[in-house]
């Protein structure tokens, strides 16, 4: 009985950690610009797919990861430079729609370059799974959790301890005032898009051995990540992680104890209930105070 529960928990935590990593990318861009970057899922795809191609060319794993992340960083900057910056006078809704367009463009490009098929990536550790109290867990899940933890920590430090992080927050709160204080807001925005792309690519690479990867993997993971970010409270790093884990565990528990047919329904019910009672999400209140 307990082993069963533990198994559902592990499978929930694995999916949840993935959602959490995607949600963190949303958080970053949102914090800088109040824009919800719907191309976030596509950076996951780019990270995973380019690592797979580099591995196939014989590049060793750590180098392949570094190169894929670098590619995503360049694309993140390009996204800002070519699509967001020219529309800097437009309001947030317009910018959000631009990111949707960019995501469709990136997906189409990936389809041409990599084709439509699914690809596999080997896990990072030799052992595929570990056995804990009668339940099994992918060793890759531990990697996902560890990377998610480190990312949250780094982001928290970045926003509270560094000038650049504070500049990003300042830009988000009042772009006009930030500019008067000598912050180059367009540069700050570009930085946020680049960091979000790096985060997305890292997430995409970490989860690829578990979920497999394809040109359109970003759609579903991107949406679920957005949902996780909304549950946790847009703009909160801790919220993104808690939201992601909550969503993943809710899905797995529903599939396990109620019915797999209602898995998605329960996840969405969760969002409705949480946002009804806490419109800013679980951890969103602090952002509201800051404003």
């Amino acid at each position, binding site marked *: 009985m307990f082993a069963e529960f533990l*198994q559902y928990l592990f499978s929930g935590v694995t999916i949840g950690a993935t959602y959490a990593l995607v949600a963190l990318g949303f958080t970053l861009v949102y914090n800088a610009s109040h824009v919800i970057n719907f191309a976030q899922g596509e950076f996951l795809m780019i990270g995973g797919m380019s690592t797979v191609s580099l591995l196939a060319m014989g590049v060793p794993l750590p180098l392949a990861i570094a190169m894929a992340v670098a590619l995503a960083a360049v694309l993140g900057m390009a996204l800002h430079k070519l699509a967001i910056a020219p529309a800097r006078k437009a309001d947030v809704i317009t910018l959000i729609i631009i990111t949707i367009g960019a995501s469709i463009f990136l997906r189409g490009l990936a389809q041409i370059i990599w084709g439509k098929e699914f690809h*596999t990536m080997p896990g990072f550790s030799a052992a595929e799974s570990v056995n804990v109290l009668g339940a*099994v867990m992918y060793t890759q899940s531990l990697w996902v959790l560890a990377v998610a933890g480190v990312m949250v920590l780094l982001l928290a430090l970045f926003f509270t301890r560094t000038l650049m992080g504070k500049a990003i927050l300042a830009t988000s709160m009042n772009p006009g005032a930030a500019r008067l204080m000598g912050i180059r807001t367009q540069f700050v925005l570009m930085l946020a898009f680049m960091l979000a792309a790096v985060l997305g690519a890292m997430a995409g690479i970490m989860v690829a051995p578990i979920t*497999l990867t394809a040109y359109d993997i970003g759609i579903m993971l991107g949406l679920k990540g957005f949902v996780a970010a909304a549950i946790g409270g847009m703009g909160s790093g801790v919220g993104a992680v808690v939201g992601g884990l909550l969503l993943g565990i809710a899905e*797995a528990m529903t599939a*396990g104890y109620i019915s797999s047919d209602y898995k998605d329904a329960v996840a969405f019910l969760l969002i409705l209930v949480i946002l009804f009672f806490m419109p800013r999400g679980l951890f969103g209140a602090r952002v509201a105070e800051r404003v």
Partner: protein
Amino acid sequence: MVTKNRCPYRAVLLIVLLVCGMMTPAMAAEPIRIGALVSATGPASFLGDPELKTLELYVERINAAGGVIGRPLRLFHYDDGGNANEARNFANRLLRSDRVDLIIGGSTTGTTMAAVPLVERAGRPIISMAGALVITEPVRPWVFKTPQSDRMAAERVLADMQGRGITGIGLISGTDGFGRSGREQTLAVAADFGIQVLADQTYGPQDTDMTAQLTRIRNTPGVQAVFNFGFGQGPAIVTRNYAHLGIELPFYQSHGVASDRFLDLAGSAAEGVRLPASALLVPDALPDDDPQKQVVQDYKAAYEARWNMSVSTFGGYAYDALMLAVAAIEAAGTTDPDAVRSALEQIRDHVGVTGTFNMSADDHNGLAPESFRLLEVRDGQWVLVD
């Protein structure tokens, strides 16, 4: 002077016209217009892509060899992207503006069923490349199909389970059209084989982890084997999760994953998995007296040489559809739709890539469950079990 000048000009014109008039019937007979409705992009692209490539390849080859009844084939093809609305629009275009003699398609049950009402109204034969039973049962006069139905796949798997003495199984299926229909057929025929479906789980086509569903099946008392009905990457993930959880029960997949792609995606987790599949997957393992051996080997060689990629079962459906159409037009000696339709119905012992077709007025598929070969994965290779 003026009339004299005009005379040679008129003579030349006359000669040109005469020569042209003489050459036209010999050089370019009115082409046979074949319409194709495929899902070459979108979620069903793994079906439509090899299907379109197969049609293009064989239309080229047939034309190079002189065409059919002395007329070349002309292929009109549209990509519906797996969308039923698009399929309906394109079927309309094929029938009205391209005025095709028959249609091959669609790739999925949804796109086929969207085109069927238009095709019936226009009175043109359609040969579908989609699996579900509803396409040919009840029989519609103008509608034919080349793949085995999902019920046959379920029957093939259940019969093998029965042979192993299995009486209780767990079923896990995708919530897409293919998985849903397969689930219904499996539930409908399981009792005929003395098998009870004790656990019935589903997963979404985009899901990335099915361990919760599998854990539940494993913990259901009486389950002696697990059957996964689905296509795409879902079954590959189910297979990986199955191995990850260390479930020891016999594991069956459907024909939806019968391609080498599945072996790549599932990796070592696929070891021991059994599934019903077309002979195309094991062309060299077939005994020499198997009538399909030659057809299958030829198709595989031609496709791989032309496109430089491995064949898939789905391309085989398109091959069979085109060859059935060609056989029917040859038998009828004309492209008159009524004559072609009855010729299709009278096709007997037509050896194709998918199986041997024996059409009749009440069977517009013409395949027996035996056309599915039961395969098992051993050492990363397909092995013929039965």
